[in-house]
């Protein structure tokens, strides 16, 4: 096997926009106007929005912070407006809008929204973030599975099925053996099996990848529902009482105010998630293996010419992706609820797919998108409790609408690996 040289593949997918694009500043301005009008001028002047910054079990108790809703909402909205103006200036000088500016804009907008929505009430920021992370974990694992498969050129619509299979088998095996770690292993095996079916049909039999993915989701759904009704529901004590993984508090790190308890007082699944994201990022972009995988996903013929075995690489990546997503599925059961219930993944696999696309097929981008979607979802349920003017269903729609915007190029073009979804048949 010859060593692949870096010249064979295009570098990173982020290419500089050569043509002037006014899209970003215009959208910035539109949303800033909305913020200034609704969160600022029409905001709740006279109320205070109170944010709790610690929980009772923390090392340092921090007093909840109360801010005057009207002025702070207006200030944050004006910050958004200022960023929009700066973005106009940048584009006018033919310079791209840097990513940090978009991030800053997003944070300011979300904070302005929060201040407006929480007016007159109190919300614990720590709990909000904790809940967001919990909702994000399956998304992150699912999105990593997507990245692994699609960077190698195989579309993975079956994330949903992999998550569900992982959740199911982990609960069953943990219940039967009484060992939660056996359950975690079983989740990996379940994901591997689903990944294997996907790989065999898409790579060996060259069946359309989207069709196979959709059908696998139906298959896993049917199989787990069937077995649930036959075995898990009537004999819950034997088949469906795995218990939950306990949280492991990391010393020192978990004492950091606000983010400590959020990030470092978690189950082993979450810690492995950090490891997985970092590992996949480094492996994909800073290792020979990753270069080969990306070559296979971008230009399989060139990769083949260089002696990389295209279909073998793809097969391995699909199996690997299946394992990652299957492991993530165990979070539904062992990491969160402590038992399996029907259709537990509830479309999270598709949100994970959306997160991967929104994150431009990169591990870190997908992580950010998954966290954002988890945050939106949790914000919706938190605000549902205190009551807000916006119906919760619209908050729940947010990730999907954002993804449509993303693929429609309204917030910058996203580009899939060039050979994603195209089977490679040696001629």
């Amino acid at each position: 096997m010859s060593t692949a040289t870096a010249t064979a593949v295009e570098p990173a997918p982020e290419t500089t926009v050569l043509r002037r694009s006014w899209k970003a500043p215009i959208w910035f301005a539109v949303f800033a106007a909305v913020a200034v009008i609704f969160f600022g001028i029409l905001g709740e002047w006279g109320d205070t929005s109170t944010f709790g910054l610690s929980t009772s079990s923390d090392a340092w108790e921090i007093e909840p912070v109360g801010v005057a809703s009207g002025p702070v909402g207006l200030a944050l909205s004006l910050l958004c407006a200022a960023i929009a103006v700066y973005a106009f200036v940048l584009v006018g000088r033919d310079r791209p809008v840097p990513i940090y500016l978009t991030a800053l804009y997003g944070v300011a907008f979300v904070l302005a929204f929060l201040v407006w929505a929480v007016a007159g009430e109190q919300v614990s920021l720590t709990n909000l973030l904790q809940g967001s992370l919990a909702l994000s974990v399956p998304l992150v694992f699912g999105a990593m599975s997507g990245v692994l498969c699609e960077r190698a050129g195989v579309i993975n619509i079956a994330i949903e099925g992999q998550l569900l299979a992982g959740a199911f088998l982990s609960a069953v095996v943990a219940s039967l053996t009484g060992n939660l770690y056996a359950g975690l292993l079983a989740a990996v095996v379940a994901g591997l099996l689903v990944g294997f079916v996907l790989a065999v049909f898409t790579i060996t039999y060259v069946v359309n990848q989207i069709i196979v993915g959709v059908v696998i989701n139906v298959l896993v759904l049917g199989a787990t529902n069937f077995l649930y009704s036959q075995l898990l529901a009537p004999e819950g004590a034997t088949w469906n009482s795995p218990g939950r993984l306990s949280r492991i508090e990391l010393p020192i790190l978990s004492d950091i105010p606000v983010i400590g308890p959020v990030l470092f007082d978690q189950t082993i699944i979450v810690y492995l998630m950090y490891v997985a994201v970092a590992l996949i990022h480094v492996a994909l972009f800073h290792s020979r293996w990753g270069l080969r995988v990306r070559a296979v996903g971008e230009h399989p013929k060139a990769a083949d010419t260089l002696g990389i075995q295209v279909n073998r690489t793809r097969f391995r990546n699909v199996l690997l992706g299946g394992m990652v997503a299957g492991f993530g599925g165990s979070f539904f059961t062992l990491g969160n609820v402590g038992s399996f219930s029907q259709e537990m993944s509830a479309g999270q696999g598709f949100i994970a797919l959306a997160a991967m696309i929104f994150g431009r097929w990169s591990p870190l981008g997908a992580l950010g998108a998954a966290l954002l979607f988890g945050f939106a979802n949790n914000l919706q349920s938190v605000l549902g409790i205190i009551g807000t003017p916006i119906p919760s269903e619209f908050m729940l729609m947010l990730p999907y609408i954002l993804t449509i915007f993303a693929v429609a190029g309204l917030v910058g073009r996203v580009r899939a690996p060039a050979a994603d979804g195209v089977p490679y048949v040696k001629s």
Partner: protein
Amino acid sequence: MSESRQAPVSAEAPGEPPPAESWSQRFIRELTTGSAMVTFLAVVLALAIGAVLIAVSDPEVQERAGYFFSRPSDTLSAAWESVSDAYAALFTGSIIDFGEYTIGRALRPFAETLTNAAPLIAAGLGFGLAFRAGLFNIGGEGQIIVGAIFAGYVGFGMDLPIGIHLVLGVLAGLVGGALWGGIVGVLKARTGAHEVIVTIMLNYVARFLIAFLLTTSVFQRAGASNPVSPVVQDSGRLPVLFDSTRLHLGFIIVLLAAAFVWWLLSRSTIGFELRAVGANPHAARTAGMSVSRAYILVMLIAGSLSGLAGVMQVLGTERYLTTGISAGLGFDAITVALLGRTNPWGTVAAGLLFGALRAGGVTMQAGTGTPIDIILVIQSLIVLFIAAPPLVRAVFRVKVRDMGPALETSKGWGA
């Protein structure tokens, strides 16, 4: 490059037979090695795997398997009983019930099959038509929901004379589906957004939309605490065709829709353009066809076909809106269309088969306690197997030809 795919038309046109072959020889060859054979073997294989699943998960079989090595016949007879009972119930629940005394009552299960088949076929046509134009319309679910919202609103929210009410309700459903499908077509044509992603996302948007609407005073039934709409008025309902069945006019409409799609695809200029765009958009553009127009048009029609399925749900069988109005039909419809090889009459046949499985599954669950979800397993396995003829060939050690590229073509995310 990523969109270049072979023309799916070759699936129906297997080419000239060798000259020495008589029509009867050709008929037998088609029967034993053609697509009918693959479909048949795929169904057999899927039912066999389903049988294994039923037997293995049966508590009685498990109990007897505890002493398998001392008396294996016990286990096997229990397994046989479990499987044969379930499949017998599947049959009596979907085709004909020999336990009944009059023909009308004995055939009631068949009417139930047709009732279940109608929305499946409609949504299946919606997937199949878009597929012919090279688009994956995974958005059947959302289009069904929006179609049902529109049709349902006309059905319970408006007071109109008999006849006009029904016609307007059906049209509203078609418009609703077309709207939801049209968004996809426009985004695909104008921005190149991949239709798979957009349709999946729109499914969820539609799901939350109906959940929201059913909490508003316009859509929620007066006095109800759960999210259900008022019942559709009598004048807005699809009339029942035979007494004591649920079979309604929708089935006839669906057959007309299938005929329309057949005519559109194989007899009209528009259909020719759609197929040309589906086979090779670059060539179609070079030939002077408007690819954008084709994408928008096909998604409008496909959306309205899925919307028709929503009409049947709300004006035919369910008669009021719930959050579960689409009942997974959108995804089942994909398997229906694929089994029917995305050709209109094939979709009708496949819809009848899956309608039978759905109808029989209910009887099976009630009669033998076998969960209806086994139907999903069987359906998805059938589609997987017909999509990979080499696998069927290997399992049964028979000669079957590859089906042509209908299900094997693939294209990337890139627009």
